[in-house]
């Protein structure tokens, strides 16, 4: 019984949690419990990111998704709760239809995922033990001829991502021999700018959409209670 592959064990653990709670989100009726199951599922996905050597991304997922978006949803649930957290039931027919479509879609995806051999991952025999947690040694400085696999230094993913955002595609720099193409290695600077402007517009729009309804225009917006004993003479 050769050595346990820790990487796979943790993968199975996080995958089980992610899928289990994703199914729980679908099954559970009460909206708040649904939100909690979703939170755990997203946290498990963040774990999967850590396992796939995307450390910075895992932390980003934890912070933005689980910390931000889910709190937003929980606030939404609390603000729109009507009475004792009513849970709306859907008819049986819709469930059956949805599940049939779901299973069909899943079968297609499963077939696609497992059929291509290239994706079946490194075989145990033709490769040294998968680096579970240790950081691979620093890339040798020597310039290999032509394209060769760069061992992404997971230790420095955040640095690479940051540089990528600023336009320097560091991981591609060393592998491109022809200087003329070096110019083409532009990173994501333009995309980064567009998205930041887009975010500002979106959030201002969201704030405007949910603005106060109290004043004027909306007829049925309730103004604060008429003061029964207000000193104004005209009150009966």
């Amino acid at each position, binding site marked *: 019984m050769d050595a346990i592959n820790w990487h796979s064990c943790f993968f199975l653990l996080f995958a089980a949690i992610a899928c289990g709670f994703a199914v729980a989100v679908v099954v559970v009726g009460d909206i708040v419990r649904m939100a909690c199951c979703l939170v755990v599922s997203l946290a498990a996905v963040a774990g999967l990111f850590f396992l796939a050597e995307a450390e910075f991304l895992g932390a980003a997922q934890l912070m933005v998704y689980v910390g931000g978006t889910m709190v937003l949803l929980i606030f939404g649930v609390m*603000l729109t709760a009507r009475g004792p957290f009513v849970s709306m039931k859907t008819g049986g027919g819709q469930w059956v239809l949805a599940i049939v479509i779901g299973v069909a879609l899943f079968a297609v995806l499963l077939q696609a995922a497992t059929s291509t051999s290239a994706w079946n991952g490194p075989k145990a025999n033709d490769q040294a033990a998968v680096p579970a947690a240790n950081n691979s040694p620093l890339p040798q400085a020597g310039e290999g001829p032509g394209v060769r696999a760069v061992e992404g230094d997971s230790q420095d993913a955040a640095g690479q991502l940051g540089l990528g955002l600023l336009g320097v595609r560091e991981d591609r720099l060393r592998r491109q021999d022809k200087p003329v193409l070096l110019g083409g290695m532009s990173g994501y600077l333009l995309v980064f700018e567009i998205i930041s402007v887009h975010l500002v517009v979106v959030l201002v729009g969201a704030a405007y959409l*949910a603005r*106060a309804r*109290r004043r004027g225009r909306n007829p049925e917006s309730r103004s*604060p*209670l008429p*003061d029964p*004993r207000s*000193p104004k003479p005209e009150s009966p």
Partner: protein
Amino acid sequence: MQAERAQSDTVEFDVRTDEMLINMGPQHPSTHGVLRVVLRTDGEVVSEVTPHIGYLHRSAEKIAEKLTVRQYLPYTDRLDYLAAMNMNLGWALTVEKLLGRRVSEKTRHLRVIIAELNRIASHLVAAGCFGLDLGSFTPFMWTFREREKIVDLFEEICGARLTYSYLLPGGVTAGPPDGWFGRCEAFLDQFDPVIDELHALLTSNAIFIKRTADVGVLPPEMAIDYGCTGPVLRASGVDWDLRRDGEPICTEMYDGYTWQVIAPTGGRYPDDHPYPPVPPEAVVGDSWHRFFVRMLEVVQSMYLIRQGIEKYSADDGELDKPIKIKEKLPKGEAYLETEAPKGQMGFMIVGDGSAVPWRVRIRSSSFCNISPLPELCRGVLIADMPAILASLDIVLGEIDR
């Protein structure tokens, strides 16, 4: 006028949530006893406040029709249990007014000393509970440490620590033990720095000012309309204190004493008091001024006590003895209001010739002081409600009687 102002600056509310009816009390820690306040809130903003009282009603006035005037004294202690001496004094003065008697100079000076000592104790409790309601626990501990010393002094005189039954109609049961005045002066001397500490801790504290300045503003006309009295009235800029402007029987007690009524008339306090200046945000009549008026009254009371001790020891007369247990009351009625720490306490006695009064009516100062609460708390945040309540300094024993 107040309603419009409150309505216009109600916090612009983002999302229309359901209005919540929330019950604060009767066992709520910040309602000074058994007061139940029903809040109608829209999110954080309080749109309607309705206080419910009566949980501490013991029909004190009905019992008075069964007891003679001297036997009823312990009941007056239980009205405002934080200032029992002042309640006794009010009852005693009313009986003396009914009987048409006056007490000797020495007794008068002793009454001034003890009444002012109890005023300091009551104001200390008010300051401590105010700090507690705003969230800082330390002033509560400091004020109660000082109050313990005053209560020790009272224990030496009459044996009790909260409900004293000492100032009887006609005189006092027994004079203070020797050396009592020395200890009294020792307490006053060490009390000065404590006042400065309290000012540093609360009055000039930025967060305290932010929480109390311009909160629960009670304009003078509304204060008078609702019949508020005492520090609540004076903080709204009405210069009215029964010890100086009251009936002759009250003002005679303070003859020969030099002191000042504390009220921000025209936005300024009487003399250039040595304590922290009034912050710019504070509006006359807000919670901050109510707190500040009490703190300055404590200083005035200290002057009065010192003068009282000098006059008492200079006078070589005799302390009067109280009236007989079964003293006959003349046919007729007498009503007198005296300046208690929380406001004007009114006692009305209707005598029908026998020793037992035919009817007794008590006008409570806290009852009137709490009546503007719904007006003050309209459009205010939930966190301000206890702050305003604490600034009014009410005692439920007195309200429910």
